[in-house]
């Protein structure tokens, strides 16, 4: 409970800092965001490529510059700062892989995700559908380890289901069903999906 309260307070603070950067180019607030997010963005990069510290530094730098440039378009009612930074880091990681020639197309992360950022005519309703940070943390804490491990592979290490299946030595169907079970247990999806 104490921990949940701390996380909620921290999130509130992060939102204030991000809004200050967006509204008044507040450098002190940006320094706080730098302090909080750079180690996490690097950890996210290292989860995919352990030991690649230069890649991790590049990604962290790129994402921080995006945070500075895009802070004005951040809408605190549609996403908390953790979600927003995660999507920036995810997109930057996809584009970095593409630049390094791993992807043989000119499709970039913006083609895949950009058009989703405004959610339609009713942002209030969109905000209503979000879960609280505490609910997600509580849900993660009660997941069986085998399900949490698969989420970790897919979200943090960036592995496709096929790669996860090879690395965990499990059938592809087991990977997929563990993910579906985890999402169900966390009540993450609406509409019975």
């Amino acid at each position, binding site marked *: 409970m104490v921990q949940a309260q701390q996380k909620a307070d921290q999130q509130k603070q992060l939102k204030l800092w991000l809004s200050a950067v967006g509204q008044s180019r507040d450098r002190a607030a940006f320094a706080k965001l730098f302090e909080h997010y*750079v180690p996490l963005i690097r950890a996210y990069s290292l989860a995919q490529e352990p030991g690649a510290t230069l890649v991790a530094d590049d990604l962290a730098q790129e994402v921080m510059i995006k945070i500075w440039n895009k802070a004005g378009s951040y809408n605190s009612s549609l996403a908390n700062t953790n979600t927003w930074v995660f999507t920036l880091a995810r997109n930057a990681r996809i584009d970095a892989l593409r630049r390094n020639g791993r992807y043989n197309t000119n499709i970039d992360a913006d083609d895949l995700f950009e058009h989703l950022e405004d959610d339609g005519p009713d942002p209030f309703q969109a905000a209503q559908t979000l879960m609280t940070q505490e609910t997600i943390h509580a849900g993660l804490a009660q997941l069986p380890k085998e399900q949490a491990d698969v989420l970790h592979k897919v979200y943090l290490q960036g592995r496709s289901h096929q790669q996860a299946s090879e690395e965990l030595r499990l059938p592809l169907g087991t990977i997929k069903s563990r993910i*579906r079970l985890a999402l169900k247990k966390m009540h993450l*999806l609406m509409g019975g999906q």
Partner: protein
Amino acid sequence: MAITQHPSGDWLSAYAAGSLPLGQSLCVAAHLEYCSQCRQNYSRLSQLGGELMQTLEPAPSQKLSLEALMARIDTQPEQPPQDIEAEGLDLSPEPRQLSPDNNSGVPRSLRKLIPNGYDKLKWSRISWSIRSAELCRDDKGLKVELLRIKPGGASPKHTHLGDELTMVLQGSFSDEEGVYHAGDFMACDQTDTHTPVASVDRECICLTVTQAPIQLSGFFGRWFNPLLRRGYTPS
């Protein structure tokens, strides 16, 4: 028509995680443009990503300093209100809208691959009722293509190789399980067997993402496999 076929949680979460092969991501992205329920679930799955990221052991940088970063920020070209990607083509001076563009009917996520509408693509005839246009091959060698099926065309019963995605862009078709309309998303694997038939009143255009170049496959692919066995080669 209501959308009845959605990507399941394992597909949608891999998309939100950014770990799906790009071709498959495109197919999910196109579906989301038609489906507000999946957009909402996508938001929640992105939230999950944000919170999972917080569970990582922080890895502070030895090299990256705030001063150096601010120096880079201060020397970057003046930013217009929205960040413009350095290498990016600016695709959309017009205001953003979520529904696929009304003029061309092409979902926004596919417009780089289909810049001038479906009719301007290079279509190859594969059988009397089917034409195809390849859009790209992705990082995993998956083939992203459109299939265009004449009204009322039917196929022999077929099965699938691996994961194969199909999304209806225009028109509709049906099989033993039901009727599929624009926006419907289907993932098939080797356990699925079915016999699709395009609706009789208008042609049907589908986006498919299939294993390539093993053999012609996909939701509609087996329509022309009997022709291949007889030595017919698509041009």
